[in-house]
Each structure stands twice: as structure tokens, then as C-alpha cells.
């Protein structure tokens, strides 16, 4: 039995990775916490929903249409609203992204109503047997997507010229700007890419759970737990953190009861912050004396 929960948690963790990668990327490059991450996820799910209701496409294939839209939204948000605020510090960015979340949440309710929606596909209700345990197919897909996303991002950041520019801008924006890197452009593209990664996560949420206009904060919190455990700003940390959180959640929930699922996860978040704020892979966090 315990082994089965381990496997379940492992693949559930895959889903958690896909929702958190965008958040950790944005923090890693811009030192910015995007409080609208949940709304980016849910917004992508709504977009996929709109596409699939108009065109007869599989929700995952609808990403072909959703991804460019999300990139443009992310890029525009960063260039128009967030870039000019970066020099004013993290609090300002928190307020700004928080305002964005508020606007997005209301816009969802106005356009799509307050009902819970879900994306439908032939594989949402089926399972795959792995080591004698039946895992939801969608979690397996999410797990594969998670690994692809993290490895893909890692390759982009380490192998491409653009990736070098991103890492330079992340390390020291002023120095990067002085050697001719267009830092605002890099920031814009990174936020766009984060929105794209969130589009994958959001579509997977739509396929595996339902979503409504107010689902955002719930997923934001889950993403926080993942990236705090892995180390904020670390890609590999997000991968490992997501899987670990999935396993911890499944296993402890099987011991103390499913109604304590959220309590376990959020108490765990506070616990990590107290014991090891930099997470598993993060840079050392400065703490007050």
C-alpha cells in the first residue's frame, strides 16, 4: 500500500512541477515573486477551454494556439507594467502582480461565470498501471511534460546565446546592460516564457482538476511550496521539490486522512522556511540577525 502511495505521489508531483516552473524561472531571473502566477495558470486553462469549445482539438494540442497568446500576454505585462517597477523594489512588484491577479480573477468571473469548468479528453479518466499501481494517465503525461520543461529550459539557459544573456542579466543587470544586453527585452521574454510554461501547467490543471475564477491562489500556494522546497529560482530544485511535495502529500494524507492534505502541505511550507529558507538548491538566503 505504502509503495502505491509513493508512486501516486511521484506522478502527482509531476503536475506540481509544471505549475511551478514558471514561478521559479521569474524569481531566478528577476528576483520577482509573481503573485499572479495562479491567474496565469487558470487563464491558460480558460484559453484552452475557449479554443477546444470552438475548434475540435485535443486540449493538449490546443496549446499550439494557447502558447503564442500566453507568450504575448506575458511579454506585454512585463514590458508595460512590471519592468518600470523593478528598480523600486520587491514590495512594489508584489503589489503590482497582486493587482494583476485581482483584475484577472474578476475578468474570468465576468467572462466565464463562476462555474467550475474542466477540460475534457479521452485520457482524463483513464489510468496506466505502473508496478501494479494504477496512476491517472494525465499525471503520467504531466510528469513527462515536467521533465521536458525543466530539461528544455536548462538547455536553453546553458547552451543558447540567449540563455547566456539571461544568466548575465540575472547575475548583474547593470553589468549585463553595460556589455550591450538589452535587459528589459530579456526580462520581457523570460516573463513570456514563464507564461508559456504556465500555459502547459494550466492546461494540465484543467484536465486533471476543475478550475474556476478563484482557483488561482490555491495553485499559487502549491507552486510556492514547490519552489520554496526546491530553492527559489532553481530549475532542478523545482523538479525535485515538485516530486517531493507530491510524495509527501500522498503518503502523509494516506496516514492522517485526506482532509488534512492542504494542512500538511502548508504547514510543510512554513516548516521549510523556518528550517532551511534557501530550500534544497537555492542560493543562501540572507536572514535577519
Amino acid at each position, binding site marked *: 500500500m505504502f509503495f502505491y502511495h509513493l508512486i501516486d505521489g511521484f506522478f502527482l508531483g509531476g503536475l506540481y512541477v509544471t505549475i511551478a516552473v514558471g514561478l521559479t524561472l521569474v*524569481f531566478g531571473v528577476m528576483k520577482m*515573486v509573481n503573485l499572479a502566477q495562479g491567474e496565469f495558470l487558470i487563464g491558460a486553462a480558460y484559453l484552452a477551454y475557449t479554443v477546444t469549445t470552438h475548434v475540435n482539438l485535443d486540449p493538449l494540442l490546443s496549446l499550439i494556439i494557447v502558447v503564442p497568446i500566453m507568450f504575448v500576454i506575458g511579454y506585454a505585462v512585463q514590458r508595460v*507594467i512590471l519592468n*518600470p*517597477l523593478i528598480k*523600486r523594489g*520587491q*514590495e*512594489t512588484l*508584489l*503589489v*503590482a502582480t*497582486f*493587482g*494583476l491577479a*485581482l*483584475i484577472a*480573477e*474578476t*475578468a474570468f*468571473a*465576468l467572462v466565464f461565470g463562476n462555474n467550475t469548468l474542466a477540460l475534457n479528453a479521452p485520457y482524463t479518466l483513464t489510468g496506466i498501471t505502473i508496478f501494479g499501481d494504477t496512476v491517472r494517465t494525465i499525471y503520467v503525461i504531466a510528469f513527462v511534460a515536467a521533465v521536458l520543461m525543466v530539461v528544455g529550459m536548462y538547455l536553453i539557459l546553458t547552451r543558447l546565446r540567449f540563455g547566456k544573456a539571461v544568466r548575465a542579466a540575472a547575475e548583474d543587470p547593470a553589468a549585463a546592460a553595460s556589455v550591450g544586453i538589452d535587459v528589459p527585452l530579456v526580462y520581457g521574454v523570460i516573463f513570456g516564457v514563464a507564461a508559456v510554461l504556465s500555459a502547459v501547467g494550466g492546461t494540465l490543471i484543467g484536465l486533471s482538476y476543475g478550475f474556476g475564477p478563484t482557483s488561482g*491562489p490555491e495553485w499559487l*500556494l502549491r507552486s*510556492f*511550496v514547490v519552489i*520554496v522546497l526546491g530553492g*527559489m529560482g532553481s530549475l532542478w530544485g523545482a523538479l525535485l521539490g515538485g516530486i517531493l511535495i507530491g510524495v509527501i502529500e500522498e503518503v502523509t494524507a494516506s496516514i492522517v486522512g485526506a*482532509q*488534512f492534505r*492542504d*494542512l500538511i502541505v*502548508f*504547514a510543510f*511550507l*512554513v516548516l521549510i*522556511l*523556518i528550517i532551511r*529558507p534557501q530550500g534544497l538548491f537555492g542560493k543562501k*538566503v*540572507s*536572514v*535577519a*540577525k
Partner: protein
Amino acid sequence: MTLSDRQPESIPPESMEQPAKRTWFEMMRALKRSGRWIKWGALVLLLLLALLGPTYLSVFELTLAFMLFNYMTLAQSWNLLGGYGGQFSLGHSLFVGAGSYTVAVLLLHTGMPLYLTLLVSGGVASGLAAIAALLLMRLREVYFTIGSLGLSVAALTWMINWSYTGASSGLSLPPTAALDYTALYYLSLALLVLTMVCIVLLVRSPFGLRLMAIRDDEEAAAELGVYSLPVKLTTFTISAFFVGVAGGLIVLNNLSIEPNSAFSLNWVVTMIIMTVIGGIATSTGPLIGAVVVFTLQQALQGYQSWSTLLTGVLLILIIRLAPGGIWNMLINGFQRLIEISLKLRPANQQSTSQREEDTVENIV
């Protein structure tokens, strides 16, 4: 002829002519000089108006005022920690819920007098804040923000499952807890005044200076011998105390309680919105922000989505274009107006006033 003899003759014509000659410029100069008096005058007037509230407000309006005063208290308390202290807390919902539940549980299970339960609710919130501070205050900036959010959500999920407090269905207060509207109105007003006085005095004290020094540069403050932990801890507990009592008042008005609304993230969201829109780290800003947000909510009551949308847009606009909030915008605009009018003093005006002085001298 002594001066005192002459005055009655010479002054009347002067004072008769003065109002006619009084120009924009002089008015502005007078305003600048008496700014302090105007401020105190306005404050006393507003307080009098508020104290006499029940004589001219309807029951419905009293309830609205009660809610507005609570919003103001909440915003100001958040402002102490988030604005003056620079600790962007997303966990203040925890203290609203803790205060509400303390009052509800005490009234249901003990014979404690109602007013005492309010005090205890503040104390419980403070106690929780002290624990939270010990756990999280080591963390800087966004880490603290995330930690406080995690704590508040963990508390919510705990309350949903805790059967002693009725789990997710919550509790209903005994009928003895029902206060009349006037009493609730005065309680919320008293809490608001207490909060304002405490926070304004605190911020202007050496303690407040230490707090703001830590916000601006923690290392530099530490070099100067300001230890951040005790200062932050005290600030957190004080901030939570007022929030807790406000939570207690809110449950006395609702007379029932359930975890999802008592610990709702909306509380802290509203506190932040009101503070930022009005003017973060100012003493008047949060009050103005509360008025703006509350008015917007009430005006668009049937269209709740639209009022949220508007506040969101307002928030982005303020943070992008006027980071000091509405209050700083007003103050700066007003000062600019005075300065411009002082500079615009026309040449002929100068000569007339010169002549005036001459004539006065001649007379004397």
C-alpha cells in the same frame, strides 16, 4: 498721544479695507502659515461629527460606518507592519480570524463579559503574532511574505477541520452577544481612534525611527546597534492586536462565524489595497484608501465583480503612476499650488503691499 489712544481710530478703516484687498496670494500665504491649525481643526471637526454620528445617521448608515471604521483600523494596522515596517505580510487574515473565533468561543463557553472578550481577542492575536514573528521574522522580504501567507492558509485549513470550533460549518453566537447598532458604532470608533493614536505616536517615537531604519537598510541599522528582531516582533504584535480586536467586533456584528470567511484571504487583500491606494507608510493614507475602497464597494454593490476590477485597475495605476498613493498626491498637489501662487506674486501687487506698509508706518 499714546499708541493705545490712536489705535481705535486708525485700525478700523484698515480692517475694513483688508478683506477687499485680500488676494489669492495672501490667502495662500495664510494657508501655508496656518496649515497645522487647519489640520487639527479638521481632525477635531471630524471627531465631533463621528461622535455625534448616532444623532443624525440611520441604522443602515450606522452599520456602514461601523464597517468603514473597521476597514480603517485594519488598513492602518497592516500599514504599521507593511508600510512603516516594510514587512509585506500576506498573513494578516490569520489575526482577523483568530480575533473573531476568540470572541465567539469565549462568549459561547465562558461567562466572560463581552467587552473583556474583545480585549482577549486582541491578546490572542498578539500572542499568535509573537509566535509567527519568532518563526518567520528571520526571513527577509519575499520569504517573509510567502511564509506569512503559508501560516495563514495553514491556520485556515486547520480551522476547517477542528471540530471544537464547529469545523467548516462554524459557530453561532448566543443571543446575549447581540449589541445594538449604536454600541457597535461607538466600539468601532473607539478602536479606530485608539489604533490611530497608538500608531501615530509609535511611528513618531524613537521606536518608530528604529523600525523605519530597519526597513530602509537592515545592515546599516544593525551597524548602528539597532537589533531588528525585537523591533519587528513588537511591531508585529501591536499590528496584530488591533486586527484581532477588529476581528472580534466583526463577529459581534455578524453573530455567526465560519472559517472560510473569518480566515479569508480577502481580509489581507483588502488591507493591502486600501493602504496602497491611500498611501503606504503615511498615517492618513490608509484611512483615505479605506474610504475610497469602501465607497467603491458600496456604490457597485450589485456588481461586485466590477468593483473588484476597478480596485485592481486603481491599484496598478497608483503603484505605476503615483506610488505614494492618493494622500501624497493630494498633499503634493496642494503644496505645489501654494508654491506656484507664491512665486506668481505679481510685480504691481508687490508695490501695493509695499505702499501699504509705508502708509501704516506713516500713520504710526
